[in-house]
């Protein structure tokens, strides 16, 4: 580095003539040098060749960024270089020197062409920088540098769109934007994909916050450009990159409503005079839909799959021109859940399916049979159980369901509560109460006055069709067991089943979101009000002996 600083001094004194020397001895230009270059370039058209020197020098930075440690000094120089280049080109764009006009002479056209090629070279390199893999120990400075590069690119995009159009015609530089999108999407790494399927890529998040969510034109062209990219370049990528692209896209559209206040946002554009096409909501929706469909065909991680299912109802279906296109995907997922015994997927798919059913009258064959199949012992151990029970509450809300179906559901729920954590039992009991209240015929499960000489439980637990399980002739002994649950609140809740059914119904929302954490926190919030009872039995020892408290263990 010491040598570098020396040559820098040299460069400064010798001015532009020292450029050859520097090419041989590749070191980055200093900040002062950059300023000098910029001045010279902006002063006269004659010094135009200096651009290629700058560009060459700028390209030297690639290995530095790739290295795990890049010194602050170098980074400052690199950013100075990038800023200089950007400023020069911005000036060129604004003065129209990149335009190849027919009126100008051949020479001028040649210069413009040459400049253009240099300009695109620079852009490509900058986009390349964005997608450079990073060392594991993420350097905050490199991060901010990359964000800076993204900002420069976006500024160039704005300048291009504002100035490069022919005359007063509206113009948006879609090509550049497409490249930027490509760079941003691929800047992520497979390791950044979070457990919920989104991606934690700072460039993407920056892009989302500062550009994507703010300006409608950027959003619109994002969809259309992504569509092109998906058809061409991204298709050729390997599976990991595809996953990254998927997660990035999902992250972009997950947080906010994509078409939020359409009328208002349309007016807010990044570029001055974008084409009128952006105000067409249907086109946007078409692109959005197309992108999703394409992306859904990618090979996905389980978490991503779940993310899509989670988003389907609120973030996808409303913005599709033709939501029924998702139907196949959702029904497939619903079935996949059963075949792979991962009912979480089924539950999530059910959520989306329900939206379709409600809004588009989707008919689903064997609906209750499938629903019944979701009631596996695993259900009550899942975190998505509350989501499922909310839906189940809707599905079972009809009083016109046949009581044999309702009885089967009750019996099955009681059965799976037998191995469930308290948070699950707490849902099941009031749910069953409400069902019994709605379908008094099913009270037979609780109270059957027929006297039997000998009784055999007629409930067929292997039967898949809830209308044929004979549950109505059975009883829910499982919930009687719950009256002896170790948790006092659960036990007393279970006891409602042997009291008069006076209450109209229980509000399920009070019971859906319990978990161990909540139980334990409420425990520790309790204050002592009476004596803390001590056991009067006494043990000689703790472990080891027959007379010990725990005879089966020893120290």
């Amino acid at each position, binding site marked *: 580095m010491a040598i570098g600083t020396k040559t820098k001094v040299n460069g400064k004194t010798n001015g532009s003539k020292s450029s050859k020397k520097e090419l041989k001895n590749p070191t980055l230009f200093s900040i002062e040098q950059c300023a000098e270059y910029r001045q010279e370039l902006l002063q006269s058209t004659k010094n135009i060749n200096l651009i290629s020197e700058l560009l060459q020098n700028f390209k030297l930075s690639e290995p530095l960024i790739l290295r795990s440690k890049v010194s602050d000094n170098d980074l400052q120089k690199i950013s100075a270089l990038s800023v200089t280049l950007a400023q020069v080109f911005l000036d060129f764009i604004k003065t129209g020197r990149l335009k190849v006009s027919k009126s100008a002479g051949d020479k001028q056209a040649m210069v413009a062409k040459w400049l253009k090629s240099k300009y695109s070279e620079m852009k490509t390199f900058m986009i390349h920088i964005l997608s450079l893999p990073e060392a594991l120990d993420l350097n905050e400075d490199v991060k901010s540098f990359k964000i800076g590069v993204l900002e420069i690119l976006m500024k160039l995009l704005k300048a291009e769109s504002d100035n490069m159009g022919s005359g007063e015609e509206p113009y948006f530089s879609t090509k550049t934007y497409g490249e930027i999108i490509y760079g941003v999407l691929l800047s992520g790494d497979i390791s950044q994909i979070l457990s919920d399927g989104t991606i934690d890529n700072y460039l993407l998040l920056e892009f989302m916050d500062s550009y994507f969510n703010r300006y409608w034109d950027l959003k619109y062209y994002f969809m259309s450009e992504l569509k092109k990219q998906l058809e061409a370049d991204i298709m050729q990528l390997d599976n990991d990159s595809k996953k990254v692209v998927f997660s990035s896209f999902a992250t972009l559209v997950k947080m906010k409503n994509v078409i939020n206040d359409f009328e208002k946002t349309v007016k807010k554009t990044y570029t001055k005079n974008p084409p009128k096409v952006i105000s067409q909501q249907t086109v946007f929706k078409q692109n959005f839909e197309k992108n999703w469909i394409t992306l859904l065909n990618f090979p996905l991680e389980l978490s991503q799959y779940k993310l899509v299912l989670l988003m389907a109802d609120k973030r996808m279906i409303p913005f599709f021109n033709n939501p029924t296109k998702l139907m196949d995907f959702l029904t497939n997922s619903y079935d996949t859940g059963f075949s792979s015994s991962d009912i979480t997927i089924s539950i999530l798919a059910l959520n989306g399916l329900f939206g379709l059913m409600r809004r588009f009258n989707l008919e689903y064959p064997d609906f209750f049979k499938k629903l019944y199949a979701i009631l596996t012992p695993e259900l009550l151990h899942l975190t998505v159980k509350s989501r499922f029970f909310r839906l189940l509450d809707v599905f079972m809300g009809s009083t016109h369901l046949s009581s044999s179906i309702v009885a089967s559901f009750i019996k099955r729920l009681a059965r799976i509560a*037998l191995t469930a954590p308290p948070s699950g039992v707490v849902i099941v009991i009031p749910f069953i109460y409400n069902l019994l209240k709605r379908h008094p015929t099913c009270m037979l499960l609780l109270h059957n006055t027929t006297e039997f000489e000998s009784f055999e439980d007629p409930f067929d637990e292997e039967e898949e069709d809830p209308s044929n399980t004979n549950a109505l002739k059975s009883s829910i002994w499982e919930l009687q067991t719950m009256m002896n649950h170790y948790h006092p609140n659960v036990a007393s809740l279970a006891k409602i089943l042997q009291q008069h059914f006076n209450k109209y119904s229980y509000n399920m929302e009070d019971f859906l979101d319990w978990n161990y954490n909540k139980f334990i926190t409420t425990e520790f919030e309790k204050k002592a009000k009476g004596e803390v009872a001590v056991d009067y039995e006494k043990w000689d020892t703790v472990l080891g002996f027959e007379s010990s408290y725990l005879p089966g263990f020893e120290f």
Partner: protein
Amino acid sequence: MAGSQLKKLKESLREAGLTGQTNVKKKGKRSTQKTPNETRRDDRKKVVQGIREQFNTFDTKFNKNKRDTATKTAVGRPSAAKSEAEKERKRAYDALKSRKNKTGGVYDRRFGENDSNMTAEEKMLERFTRERLAQASKRSMYNLEDDDDDMQLTHSGKSLSFGDLDNEEEEDDGGFLTKKRDFEEGDSESEAEVQPGRKKTKAEVMKEVIAKSKFYKHERQLEKQRLEEDIGELDDNFDDVMSELRGVPQEKGPLFSTKSEDNIKYDTAVRSLTLERRAVPADRVKTQEELESEHKAKMEKLEADRKRRMEGMVENADTRADDLEDDFFQGTDEEDEEDEIRLAEDDEEEEELFDSTKITGTNNIKIGGKPESISCPNSLEDMLNLLKDYEILEYPNVIKKVLKTYDPKFGEQNKPKIREFSKVLVDLIVYLTDEGANSEVLEGIISKIKPLVERYPEEMYEKFRSYLLSASTRPDIRKSDLIVFTLVGMTYSTSDQYHLVATPATLLMCEFLETTEIENNRDLFVGVYFATLLVRYQRISQRYIPEVVSFLEKALLKLVPEPEKIESQLLSSTHSKIISTSLTLEEIALPESDKLSLSLLDSRSKSVTQALLSKALSTIDLLIPLWQQFTSFTEIVTPFIAILDHLLTKVESTKINTLHSKLVKLRDVSLAERRPLKLQAHRSIAIASTLPKYEENFNPDKSYDPNRERLEVSKLKAQLKKEQKAALREIRKDSRFIGKQQLDDKRKEMDEYHAKMSKIVNSISTVEGAEKNQYAKEKRRR
């Protein structure tokens, strides 16, 4: 009577003798008919009134009687009442109006002047009492001569009573008002003709004051003179008196006390004895049987209390199923009392504890050499500092020593120290367990905990709770956690429906059982330990813990060879997750001994895994009696039977075999005994009847409410309502009347005004006309 109304009227008038010839003498018989003449004007009026009433049927109001139409009973005369009320209002209004905008005036406060109901005598009497009362109330508090001011015996104008003497005494008292009165009296005596009511002039008042002060001065001089005379007399007689006194022989006592030393001692002893508390008879030494029965009674009481807590019958615990979030586990505030009682009781136990040396057996400790220097640690650091000088085996003895030295009996300041110390003891146990101290030391220290918990319940439960709280936020489970959870179970009454320490501890263990994905021996070990411990927690209350069931199944599925071959339909776990893992045993060789050492917690060897499998199976065995009570026993054990079935195909083991056959047998029994539920077998509730109860001789005016109180209340309510209505009606009538009157007044006023004005105008125009005529005449004349 027939004919028109007019004819009827004429007829009746004639009959009453009001019309027609009045002086007709009827022949043949003496006329009995009263003839209305001038003297009998009143009679005439009455008769006319009667006729009028007879003819105006609207003037009387009849109460309709539904049943018996024959007997009409007149209840009121509305028009008459109305006009009467009108008159009354008019009077009141006029009175009010006449007083309007006027202040002052003469009020008639005479009593009974216009009351015609009273006889003259009554009036007099009443007036007299009033007068007396008025006088009595005006009396001043200093007036001592109550009634006798009028009835004094006098002689030649002077009082014969001992008033002078009294007055003198009063003077000593210095009552100013009294003096004044006396003075006045004296005054009035001298000039009796002076009217008492007249106001005195200033000159008179001043004269009085001067006279008064002169009078006092004179009195004082008289007094002094009398005193001097008395003293002189006494001086004169002194010698006589003394000589007489000297004649009486007098016993001469010593100047100082002559009591001997012994006597003094004796006296003080007696005095102290009287002051000393009377000795109470000592409690008789109880016989063995009595002690036993006492112990039994105590135990029974404890058991009854425990049962009450187990069923959640704590005071105010009106547990409704639906108030899940409510704090329905309310205790009482009798903590303090309990505390004291327990302290008293536990003293014996404490002693017992300190005397018991069976843990180490080495009583002749070296610590005895430096007993005084032992300090009471109040933090774990202090504790370790203290303990570092001793062998690890001596720790329990050191602790015993500290407990003994700082026993609260020996000093007020010891109590807080020991409280801190008992908390530190828990920390020490945690520390030593994690350090891997040997069992004797740990047992020795742990045995000290329970008495301390009984003595200092608040500190200890707070300590345990804070430990549990920190354990709940910690991701890993330590060996010390196992010990602390065990300690909680040993110490506290885990059978309670709700327990401040036991419930959170249970929840924490269940959370572990539920959430842990069994990946290694350690997870398995902790899980099996917790499962066993939870069974111990529920040994009395016999409550169902779903987490234990699901954990045991999960654990067995992890351990058994080729788990994917089990008939998965019967299991309650997810089918997809049943695959062989690193934990899966290829072959099963259950160890002989069923005991597991905590030191193997981190061991990864297969033999430990085998032991854990064996332990898990014995835990199931332990759980059978608990599960057996539930009607869903079949559902609980079916998965285990399936797993054991599978296991038996792999290995020949008597243990598995017995367990399997036991489960199958019990399941069959349970299945055979099981009958459908009858949970809603409540006492049937009567359907609310809408038919009224039949009452003989029902009277609608009467209330037949069986509830006496409600009846009273409704009566009062009805009365109130009636009164209110009447009052409102009255008010409305009044205001209507006033409105009408005001309008009338105004109209009258206007009429008067207009009349006046027109009069004036008339007069003016008359004058004017006259003048005009005059003018015209004059003009014509000229």
